[in-house]
């Protein structure tokens, strides 16, 4: 979990909602406030020590495949 307090979480969630243009119900909003730290923790968990040598698994053909 992050160390954010309730005010910081609210700011962060409001910023994402504003940027994304999502309008949410009061119930959805409360849920997102509660969920936000867990979502950020999930993203933070991806920054593991073994990654510096890893390329992202995104492959595309530079040449058009006929």
């Amino acid at each position, binding site marked *: 979990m992050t160390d954010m307090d309730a005010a910081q979480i609210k700011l962060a*969630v409001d910023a*994402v*909602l504003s940027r*994304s*243009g*999502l*309008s*949410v*119900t009061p*119930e*959805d909003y409360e*849920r*997102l406030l509660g*969920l*936000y730290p*867990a*979502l*950020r923790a*999930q*993203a933070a*968990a*991806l*920054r*593991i020590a*073994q*990654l510096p040598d*890893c*390329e*992202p*698994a*995104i492959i595309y053909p530079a040449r058009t*495949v006929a």
Partner: protein
Amino acid sequence: MSTRLPSTIAEAGAALRSGQLSSVALTKELLARARAAQDTIAAFIALTDDAALAAAQRADTELSNGTDRGPLHGIPLGIKDIIATADAPTTANSRVLDPAWGDRADATVVRKLREAGAVLLGKLGLHEYAIGWPDPATGFRIPKNPWDLARTPGGSSSGTGAAIAAGLILGGLGTDTGGSIRGPAAYCGISGIKPTFGRVSKEGCVPLGYSLDNIGPLAHTVRDCALLLQVLAGFDPRDPCTAQEAVPDMLASLDGSLDGVRIGIPRDYFFDVPDLDAEVRQAVLNGVEALAAAGARVIDVPFPNGPVASDAQRVILFSEAYAYHERDLRERPEQYGKFTRQQLQQGAFFTAADYVQAQRVRSLIKEDADRALDNVDVLITPTVLNVAPTFEGYNPDAVRRQPSFTGIWNLTGLPALSVCCGFVESGLPVGMQIIGRAFDEPTVLKVGDAYQRLTDWHTRVPQLAREGQLA
């Protein structure tokens, strides 16, 4: 009803060819069962009686004229209603999907099934857009688990799993982005395989996670899954994700022999997590023991990064799903079911860097999987942590960070099959997952089929279906 019908595609095929049964008679009976069960099992969104009976009639005529299209000829199947079919609208179980999207030609996989002579009974229910949890407020029927109507059949291919377990169809199509074929297979006591990513065309399927989605078959037996996969597999120029890999004979290795087969057991994460139900764990270990007693060699293998693999799969899933749904979530969020909307909203909270990091973890996990499979032919794990949960009190958020044994194989693209390996004391089925190397479905199917020759879990039928109490 007391009519004893074939319970497998293989059995039905033999009956059709011997003249014991016609496709029309079989189709009529299954349509009647399906309709009678709509208020209990509720597996179908739409039943296409006229088209099904016409296809069955064609099959009977062709078979009697000596035209044999193969093992699926005249066989009644169902299609998850996220895959386009020409004879019925496609809804994705949602009020949001533009009806015009569904008003189109058959998806490639559906076209292939029709060319193989299959009889399509209708469109099967699912979790809305293949994600979330059923919301009664959307007005769509909610499929129930035939083993216990108070429980989910799993998702998101809920209707497919329920219909097969209840004996309403002999096989069907599902999709799998994080376990949506294998979960229902496990919870319903049937077989289901997520093929290698790129093995089966996704053309004509509403996407959930572009780099994670797969279409695959469910049926009572592994052999039937192999029959279905043989028809479905192959490069499709209309789907850039399909691989130009030759399609092997999926049935050639189904000889029951386990001589020389090496099974890897990744105990870290898959067997030692506290969330894993003890009865499920034991049933899967019993399954491994049965395979070992029949000649397979069992070897412990490392899989060090299970938790972060699950995190990576979820970040990729929610990011890709959100990209698809972004506009509808902005413009008409109220038309989504509550749980689907809430799941999809999460994608807005991951950054581009999060997505790239998840894709870098993906590369790492792919190496882990390749290393685990280095000296073995397949891996075996439980399919899911537990048996089918009840609808009552289920909280999707509470299970968010629970370990997932299925999504890792979507992350790595490897083929993964779920088979029934026993029942817990309460009478609910347990799933065992068999994972193989990329494009080596034949070996995965071989081990699953061999297991089904040693055991009879897959032959068990829910009491409701046995006693004709589906209505």
